[in-house]
């Protein structure tokens, strides 16, 4: 059970952060950074397996779904911006966290523009007057 190990590691990290925080707040912040990155790393392992499964499925059935990579990139941008927002929120910088989330949303919108253009072209194709 890897879940138990991850939860125990998070609890031990929290206790150590709580111990150091009154004496050395900066080193406590570095410890927060390290614990968060370890937890996000363990979150990355099942996501990687799922993405590889989906890619192998589309490759096997010769399924012409060229926008799957774009969807994965969107998930990746959401993941990275969530990581940054959580880290900055942990040290009490709420405004920077909101701005990181804003940048993430904007870049997801920017990446999804080709899909939107394809949808619009398909709709225009079915309208005979254009």
């Amino acid at each position, binding site marked *: 059970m890897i879940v138990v190990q991850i939860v125990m590691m998070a609890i031990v*990290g929290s206790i150590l952060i709580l111990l150091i925080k009154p004496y050395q707040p900066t080193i406590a912040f570095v*410890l927060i950074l390290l614990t968060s990155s370890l937890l996000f790393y363990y979150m990355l392992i099942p996501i990687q397996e799922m993405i590889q499964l989906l890619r192998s499925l589309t490759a096997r059935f010769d399924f012409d779904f060229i926008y799957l990579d774009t969807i994965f990139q969107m998930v990746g941008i959401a993941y990275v911006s969530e990581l940054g927002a959580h880290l900055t929120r942990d040290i009490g910088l709420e405004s920077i966290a909101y701005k990181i989330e804003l940048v993430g949303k904007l870049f997801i919108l920017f990446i999804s523009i080709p899909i939107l253009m394809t949808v619009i072209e398909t709709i225009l194709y079915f309208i005979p007057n254009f």
Partner: protein
Amino acid sequence: MYNDASIIFQIAGIGIIVAMIHTILKQMGKEEYAQFITLVGFIIVLMMVVDRIAELFQHIRSVFLLQG
């Protein structure tokens, strides 16, 4: 590299030792040396962590196909 969590204990140990040295130097009246020790401890800890963070971001980029 990520399958051991011992770096958490290492950094916590460095933090405790730096806090001890800081307190002792402050009691001796050497305020500027105490600040310097804090700075050096922070830099050492940051050097240990930066590699891990870089590895995490490299892994994220390889998983989510963000090679741009």
